[in-house]
């Protein structure tokens, strides 16, 4: 279970302090598929970064399976990300110099997966998201947007994470491809008991999730 309690985040900018999150409190149960919606600048991505231990809150606590992640050291937070969290980004963020399968193997290496079984594991994951053997050996620039997002999802799943944090996963995809990616994430939640938190501004997608949180100016308004 993931529990966010009274979390605030303030950024110091040249123009003064910006309060990205204000006293946010929410709970997500294991295996749930939830969405966070809100306008641009409402604090969605900031909340996702804090949930994934990419950033620390200015105030409040985030408890993941009884562990307060904001109190973890930098190294422990890295380990937390490697083992518990899988990120899916709007821009895919694949390493351009590595092939699709090497991108997935990179996450396996960071997660401490044995070198001897990384290739097979990565191939199986890519196959499960719909990339054939030939496509697996291509570099990201030679894959379509949908294929790159599938590689991104396979990378996120590499270390069997308990949580998938997806930031606008369909934002750069056409509606048909976006639907396929969304269905893939939905299947993960349903079939593998993986908790999926999706940040989106697409109300249609949000409507298909178990619950939706709405962020307005850094505050949760609906649950």
């Amino acid at each position, binding site marked *: 279970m993931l529990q966010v309690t009274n979390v605030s985040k303030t950024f110091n900018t040249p123009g003064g302090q910006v309060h990205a999150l204000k006293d946010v409190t929410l709970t997500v149960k294991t295996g749930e598929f939830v969405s966070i919606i809100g306008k641009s600048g409402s604090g969605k*991505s*900031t909340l996702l*970064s804090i949930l*994934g231990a*990419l*950033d620390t809150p200015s105030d409040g606590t985030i408890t993941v399976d009884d562990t307060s992640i904001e109190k973890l050291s*930098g*190294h422990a937070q*890295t*380990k937390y*990300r*490697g*083992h518990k969290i899988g*990120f899916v*980004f*709007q*821009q895919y*963020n*694949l*390493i*351009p*110099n*590595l092939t699709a399968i*090497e991108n997935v*193997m*990179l*996450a396996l*290496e*960071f*997660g401490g997966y044995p*070198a001897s079984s990384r290739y097979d594991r990565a191939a199986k994951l890519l196959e499960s998201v719909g990339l054939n053997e030939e496509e697996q050996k291509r570099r990201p620039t030679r894959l379509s947007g949908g294929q790159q997002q599938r590689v991104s999802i396979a*990378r*996120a799943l590499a*270390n069997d994470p308990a949580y998938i944090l997806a*930031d606008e996963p369909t934002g750069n995809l056409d509606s048909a491809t976006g639907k396929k990616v969304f269905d893939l994430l939905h299947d993960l939640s349903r079939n593998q008991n993986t908790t999926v938190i999706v940040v989106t501004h697409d109300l249609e997608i949000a409507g298909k999730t178990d619950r939706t949180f709405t962020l307005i100016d850094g505050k949760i308004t609906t649950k």
Partner: protein
Amino acid sequence: MNVLTRGVKNALRSPLRSGAIVLMFAISIALILSMLVARSSVQAKINEVKATAGTNITIRPAGVMGGMGGGDPLTAEQLATIKSTANVSSTTLTLTDQLGTDDTELESSQELGAFGQRQMRFESSGTTESTTAPEGTATTEQSDRPAPTPRITVTGTNDVNSVSTDGSDLNITSGATIDASGNGLVALVGSTLATKNSLELGDTFTAYGSTVTVSGIYTTDNAFQDSGIIMPLTTLQTLTEQADVVNTVIATVDSSDNVAATVTSLKTALGDDADITSEAESAASSVESLESISSLALAGVIGASIAGAAIVLLAMVMVVRERRREIGVMKAVGGTDGKVVGQFTIEGLTLTLIGTVIGIALGVVVSGPMTTSLVSSQNSTTSTTAAETGRNGRPAGRPGGFAGGVEQINTNLTQVTASLTPQVFIAALGITFLIAIIGSAVPAWLTARVRPAEVLRTE
């Protein structure tokens, strides 16, 4: 694929850029190596020249240049001062004189030639007549001057080997050496003079009205020396009625480290009455050009090292800045600082390693010609200067018949052999290693500072 292979692969991901970085770095390394080789080789030559310069100091009466010039000979009192000067371990005393036709029946074996005749044009005896000019001004004219007769140089010394041109023992081809510390009427005769006058061991000849016995025949590599006579110092002083005086003292100093100080002491003690020079001083002066090359090479090493470090540093900083997103993503998906920094460090080391191999190979090829070029260009400048000063006489330190050593030094200055010694190789590797560390550590530090959230927030 692990950190190592990923680092190596990433280093070569952009062949053009990596090639340019490697090439620039290789040129820096080649320059560093070449300058180190030049410095090392030149320094070895400087040490060699200084070591062979010896510890002798030559003291002559002021104004005397070989057998020419004027001035008073060095007196017994001055000799005592020289001998008592600190660090002077021994002295070789020499008095030279010339036997004319009135002094001996021997014929000189030297052919005067045009040069010799010009030297002696004022010294021939002849009649002169005075005439009175119409205006009443008296003038003197020289007439009926006979052909000049070359004289025979006789050297009185307390060490016959001092006559040797190369510092080695005198080569006695017949008979035995003389007791130079004695006062016997004995002499060593130069081989060409002996041949000219059919002198053999045990023969006698007249000098200054006394009968002198030939104790031995000697030869040197010098035609002038081989036409001379060597006698015990005291004998020549007695025969020429110049008791206790000499015109050359070679003072040997106990250590090369004390030569400069001893020269200073002697100059202070003897003042303007004597001209004092040392081979070490001359050698030091001669190697000034090499020392400037050594300094230039050191500046080159420092400059090339800074350039090499800057190339690697700027290249890696550029790489890290360009790939901040990639670094952020790696950290986001679980990459520890150690693994991410390790990858970028290996990228930097890969480029520096390739650059080092190419640079050292290039350096080995160009270091020889570069050293030769540096030495020859510097010495050609020095030679021009030396030629200008040479109008005033012989090279400093060896005026007169004992010249040769310093000329030899000057000749050898251009003969610097560039050699890549293990010490130089290790020094070059050490500098390269240092550059590689700096070139990798700074990007590593920059990499570690990248916060994944900041990178991903910029989407």
